[in-house]
């Protein structure tokens, strides 16, 4: 029961955070020296056109009123229009955001599926050959520049071996002859639920290289974090007690020890998930992945303030929820943690 109360309290706090973030980004976007009205009308505008645009965009109103009008729209799902492209931002996000989310989720899956077992075995066999190899891998993972790795992988798997496509989310032929019907915006999910396996396979082949490239950093972090907490936990008396009680080594490592060691790893994964939502830009560029990073970077470069504010709010929502999730997960895993 106290958990529900806690969640409600945290949600109220989340709303406060979102309001503050929206205020700060909104006003910062408006004090930078640029004229959205001029951006709206394009190059070589007349004085009249600019004045007209200022009125259309409501820029002639006081700042606080602009903010309230903007937030009113947000609450109704209207994030405004890009001052560059005049496209509704919510429409843009419907294509860019699932693309990034799909990429990031697959990369997180790679980090978890490979990172946790490698970290566990590495920590359990501290000083072994496997441990040294894994640690090298982990250091490489966190230190190799992603764009460079992306290019090298393209060179090998597309250039030399021809196994995997160069870039994009889907092949042109597939997009033309076996198009994926848009439901969730996740190509893998949409193609799977409609049974479009040709497209599914194609989308899967497309996502492998960018997802792996994006995964290297969280993978390295996961291995290192899991390894070091496992080493600590495996020295605990309750692990000796379990060994003395004849519990199998597999259960000791992956159940009894891992549950004690997993919290820091989950935290690292959660935070790097949020970071990747906009931080995947380099991978998106290298693999021509039409994602949020590319979208927001272009917006920043052209001071397209409604886009900047919208994306910031979107990422903040994720950040707040991931943090809430991390706290709840921690309390669920460790009964000594009180919320």
């Amino acid at each position: 029961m106290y958990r529900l109360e806690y969640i409600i309290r945290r949600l109220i706090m989340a709303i406060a955070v979102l309001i503050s973030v929206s205020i700060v980004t909104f006003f910062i976007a408006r004090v930078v020296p640029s004229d959205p009205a001029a951006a709206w009308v394009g190059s070589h505008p007349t004085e009249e056109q600019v004045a007209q645009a200022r009125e259309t965009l409501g820029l002639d109103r006081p700042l606080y009123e602009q903010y309230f009008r903007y937030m009113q729209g947000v609450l109704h799902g209207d994030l405004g229009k890009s001052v560059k492209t005049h496209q509704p931002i919510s429409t843009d996000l419907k294509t860019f955001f699932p693309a990034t989310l799909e990429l990031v989720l697959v990369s997180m899956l790679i980090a978890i599926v490979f990172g946790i077992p490698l970290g566990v075995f590495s920590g359990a066999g501290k000083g072994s050959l496997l441990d040294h190899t894994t640690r090298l891998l982990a250091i490489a993972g966190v230190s190799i520049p992603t764009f460079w790795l992306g290019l090298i992988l393209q060179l090998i798997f597309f250039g030399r071996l021809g196994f995997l496509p160069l870039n994009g989310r889907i092949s042109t032929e597939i997009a033309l002859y076996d198009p994926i019907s848009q439901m969730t915006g996740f190509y893998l999910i949409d193609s799977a639920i409609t049974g479009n396996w040709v497209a599914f396979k194609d989308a899967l082949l497309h996502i492998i290289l960018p997802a792996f490239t994006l995964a290297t950093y969280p993978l390295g972090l996961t291995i290192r974090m899991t390894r070091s907490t496992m080493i600590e936990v495996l020295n605990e008396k309750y692990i000796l007690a379990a060994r003395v009680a004849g519990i199998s080594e597999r259960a000791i490592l992956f159940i009894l020890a891992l549950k004690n060691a997993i919290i820091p790893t989950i935290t690292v994964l959660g935070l790097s998930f949020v970071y990747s939502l906009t931080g995947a830009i380099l991978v998106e560029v290298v693999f021509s992945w039409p994602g949020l990073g590319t979208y927001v970077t272009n917006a920043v470069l052209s001071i397209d303030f409604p886009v900047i504010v919208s994306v910031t709010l979107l990422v903040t929502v994720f950040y707040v929820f991931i943090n809430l999730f991390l706290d709840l997960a921690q309390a669920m895993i460790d009964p000594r943690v009180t919320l």
Partner: protein
Amino acid sequence: MMAAPLLSIDKLHVQFRTYAGVVHAVNGMSFDVRKGEIFGLVGESGCGKSVTGLAILRMVPHPGQISAGSILFHGEDLLLKSKSEMQAIRGGRIAMIFQDPSASLNPVFTIGNQITRVIRQHLPVSRDEAKERALSMFAAVGLPDPENIFHTYPHELSGGLQQRAMIALALSTGAELLVADEPTTALDVTIQAQILVLLAELRDKQGVSILLITHNLGVVAETCDRVGVAYAGSIVEMGDTEDVLYHMKHPYTHGLLAALPHPSRRGQLLQAIEGNVPNGLALPSGCPFHPRCEHVMDVCREKKPELVCLGAEHLVACHLYDEQRS
């Protein structure tokens, strides 16, 4: 009529290869634990009691190694068992509990989860049967409200209840031998006494034999049928508790008892044994106790004394008794 030994340790040696050199933690340790008895292994800190206990389960921590000797359980040498045979023996036939129950229980699993995991590791029973077994074990060790205990986490219990839960867990598979390494040291005095009573009760009712490791002679006097006094990794005196504590023969046992407060010596200063416990890195030649012994003779510096019988059940390893071996 002597009961057959359940466990028989003979000339066990355990070494730790460290950067500083080879540490001789256990040096020719020999003793038996008979069926249905509580055997006390007593000695000062660092004399190799815990390492001996772990060696029985072949769980000597790295970088330690059993370098010589034998450990017979039901007449079979545990040192010759395969890995999987050993895993079945650990927790299945020989169980072990430690000093600090709060550290020995896994903090993120319920007591019920932990005990059923052990039961199902060793016995072919269903989840429900395992739970039933766990609940009856909780009752047997005097845990109040077993159903409730089953669902609690370790940190929700007091130290005494935690140790009872630990004992329940250790004996839940029907182990014949319990190695209890300082099971009461971390507990309050009153709780200590209760746990000792419980151990004696379990011996009587479930027929479990107990190797009770302790540095506390009071615990030995209260609980043990027989006792072995260890010094620098081997037994110096062994026999019925009464013989060893009240008719001790070895100068070290003398010293240990003289260091205890006693009503008959009220008003006198307690006598500590001169000198220090030898370092496992560089053991004294001959009898390891000779540098601290009041009765030291030439032979003590050269030859390590063997355990010899002085009467049917009383053994001592000391050159003072070389003449009297029977």
